[in-house]
């Protein structure tokens, strides 16, 4: 489907509220991470927010890792 319109994409396909709330930033084992709530009692890590390059080699924070609600402290 191709739409020829001067309107912005967001005016035609607005973002649903749930999309905003699905992603959240939490603190996990002392690091800030971005997670997606996959609504089965787990979060999936999307992005690690850190400046320490060695954190990115830590497999606990690798993207896609599942963590349960209990393990994480919301901020």
């Amino acid at each position, binding site marked *: 489907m191709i739409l020829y319109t001067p309107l912005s994409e*967001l005016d035609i396909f607005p*973002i649903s509220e749930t*999309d*905003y709330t*699905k*992603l959240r*930033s939490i603190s996990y084992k002392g690091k*800030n991470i971005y997670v997606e709530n996959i609504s089965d009692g787990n979060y999936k890590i999307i992005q690690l*927010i*850190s*400046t*320490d*390059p*060695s954190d990115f*080699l*830590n*497999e606990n924070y*690798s*993207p*896609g*890792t*599942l963590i349960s609600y209990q393990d994480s402290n919301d901020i």
Partner: protein
Amino acid sequence: MEKSQVGKKQQNNEQKEQTSDLVHKIQQLGQTSVAEAPDTNIHVLSIIGQVEGHIQLPPQNKTTKYEHILPQLIAIEQNPKIEGLIILLNTVGGDVEAGLALAEMIASLSKPTVSIVLGGGHSIGVPIAVAADYSYIVPTATMTIHPVRLTGLVIGVPQTFEYLDKMQERVIQFVVEHSGVKEDQFKELMFAKGNLTRDIGTNIVGTEAVKHGLIDEVGGVKNAMEKVNQLINMRKTQEVIQ
């Protein structure tokens, strides 16, 4: 008897967890083990996607939120184990005030900072790139310099225009103070006609950015690491003399 059964169950559960961990790692990374590194004295700050400021962007945008970066910069300044900072830039620009805030924070760090422009350092990415003590650009990266605007539409209200004009002046001043580019030259690039289709401004590629004095040198990770180590050593010897 019961105890041993419970023990066995626990063992089984642990084994299951281990295997699911392993499967997971293979699914996500395509390998079972990830390299481990010792503590590093150089930290990396990546500014990717859009610079997000006062307005929250829809979740499908890749953004760098300044409220995440500012505390990290303070933490870097405070931590004595961190001796240098490398800033990786691949940004399309974004919120002018947020970008300027980041640039000012980076410029006022006491620790050596080196920036690398990868892919793109457009718009408000320019002041962030020049804010570092030394800046690199990879040969294929580009930087778009254009006037400050809201949406690209014509501004109808004179007050809005004046406000944006002042904001633009702040950006120009910052870039001129922190890089080798002359004010006239930078303005010329900003208001050039015919470079961007139906818009004013200039898109400059790697070596051109160096030629204009905007960026210090063409180079990549190796150069940046060498430079930051060199700056760290210089800082150390200065401290010894003092």
